[in-house]
């Protein structure tokens, strides 16, 4: 007991001394905080931010260009949610599906319109019929057309169709059936193309009211039995590029009303093919303003590995169709994307992390966690 008192006395004295010193250093207390303060965002987001879609379960705006790595905002998402970010209007659109009693009850498909500055929902378009495709969120489920005045929503019941939406007047214009075809890619001034199960591509032109103004089909080019195209694509100099499972790249020019299938070329040499190098992952391809094509590639690929994470990113010059560089990733990646601007960042989802590389040098700059990601990530860079 005597020992404890001896020990306690100097401690109490030290605490009193510290308190006295603090009071002396900070003569005034902290001011009260203002209540009901809500963050806002800039009207135009920097290109060093990116939207991250957690397989349609959650949509997150993340600062990927700074070591702060902070989450800037999140949007509600329930099932197979997909995102469109406008640059013609300060609006973000999320297509989603909910049920009135959680996982049961009345189904509602809808597009929420968010104000980019406040992220407040400022409008809604309810989609009729309960037809919106419920698929792991990916490219081709929801796309702009008509210079962002309209959107096209892919429906799958399992009959295929699309719902045409007027985003300016916030209303549904109609439905177009696309039997045997899947996903939508913007085409021409006002229209879309879709990949069909007979190996061809169907292009649909729309009039100002969203009705079909014309249709055209390409010859069959998608080798569905032997070497089908991934449905993930990227646009380089206005041309859309689709990799195939075995390592071809198929350019398709969708700038005109009728899509034009351009000659394909190989991403792999004979030596690469011997090593079973193939495209692999989820969002496997990205393009930049320098007409370069980035593809996730994996060695030793075989049947069933086409969605596995890949160890390298290969960079191709689309003009002379040659490989410029191979980037060895620090961690195997499943989804890639590039930020826009003069110094693009290569974003790589690797498991539950997002690795940020210098796209030109290939050096890892930073890495951030992706809390709650348990499946695929779709990365939406900002313009």
């Amino acid at each position, binding site marked *: 007991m005597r020992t404890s008192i001896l020990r306690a006395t100097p401690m109490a004295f030290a605490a009193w001394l510290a308190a006295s010193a603090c009071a002396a250093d900070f003569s005034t207390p902290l001011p009260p905080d203002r209540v009901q303060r809500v963050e806002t965002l800039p009207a135009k987001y920097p290109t060093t931010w990116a939207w991250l879609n957690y397989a349609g379960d959650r949509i997150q705006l993340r600062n990927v260009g700074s070591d702060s790595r902070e989450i800037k905002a999140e949007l509600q998402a329930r*099932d197979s949610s997909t995102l469109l970010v406008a640059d013609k209007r300060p609006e973000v659109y999320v297509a989603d599906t909910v049920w009135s009693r959680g996982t049961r009850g009345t189904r509602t498909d809808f597009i929420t319109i968010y104000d980019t500055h406040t992220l407040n929902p400022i409008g809604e378009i309810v989609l009729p019929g309960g037809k919106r495709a419920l698929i792991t969120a990916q490219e081709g489920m929801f796309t702009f057309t008509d210079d962002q005045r309209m959107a096209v929503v892919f429906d799958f019941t*399992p009959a295929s169709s699309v719902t045409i939406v007027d985003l300016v007047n916030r209303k549904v214009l109609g439905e177009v059936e696309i039997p045997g075809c899947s*996903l939508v890619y913007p085409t021409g001034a006002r229209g879309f193309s879709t990949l069909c199960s007979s190996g061809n591509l169907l292009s649909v032109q729309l009039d100002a009211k969203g009705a079909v103004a014309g249709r055209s089909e390409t010859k069959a080019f998608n080798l569905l039995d032997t070497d*089908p195209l991934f449905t993930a694509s990227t646009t380089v100099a206005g041309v859309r590029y689709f990799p195939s499972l075995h390592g071809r790249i198929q350019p398709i020019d969708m700038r005109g009303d009728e899509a034009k299938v351009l000659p394909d070329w190989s991403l792999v040499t004979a030596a690469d093919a011997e090593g079973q190098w193939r495209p692999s992952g989820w969002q496997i391809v990205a393009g930049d303003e320098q007409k370069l094509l980035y593809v996730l590639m994996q060695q030793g690929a075989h049947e069933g590995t086409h969605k596995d994470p890949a160890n390298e990113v290969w960079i191709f010059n689309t003009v002379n169709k040659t490989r410029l560089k191979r980037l060895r990733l620090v961690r195997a990646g499943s989804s890639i994307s590039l930020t826009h601007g003069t110094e693009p960042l290569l974003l790589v989802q690797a498991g539950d992390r997002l690795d940020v590389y210098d796209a030109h040098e290939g050096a890892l700059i930073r890495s951030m966690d992706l809390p709650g990601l348990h499946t695929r990530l779709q990365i939406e860079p900002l313009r």
Partner: protein
Amino acid sequence: MAQFDRVTEKMLRGFASRTSRRNLFTVLGGFLAGAAALPLLPVARAEGPEANGSDPNSGAPAPRHSGNPQDPGDATKCDYWRYCAIDGSLCSCYGGTVTSCPPGTEMSPITWIGTCSNPADKRNYIISYNDCCGGVPWGRCACQNNQGDRPLVRPSNNNEITWCFGTKSQSYTCTVALILGVAIDQK
């Protein structure tokens, strides 16, 4: 440091002069024999079942085997042979089984199919991956196997689609793996 080196060297030289290589192998052999005997100790026996997940204190549900040697594997694990083309949650972890949906859900009659090789009888079987719909949202026991999976252009061979069609709710819970039959060229 130099002093330490000199002492260490002296000790090792002394050890080497007192022992032969055969002697060293004898000692090592004794350690190896001891290691081999370790699993026989009671502690090792208690930890043995944990390796295959059946430890009652592990917290995890025990493995689920069919009991039929022709249908081998644990139906709660992604590497069970019928799951070769599955992308989703295993109903065996939600109150269902490999062939039945959990209580309170509804099985979709419309589905996607894969072809899986049975390691026991070496036959290829056509497997129907029926989704169970309207229960708790998925998340646990998620598996991503893509044997025979093809891009969405051929929906019936694509495992990214929520196959909840013809059901009251289209909200996905989990997936079962039903044998439809032997692949034609394997009969």
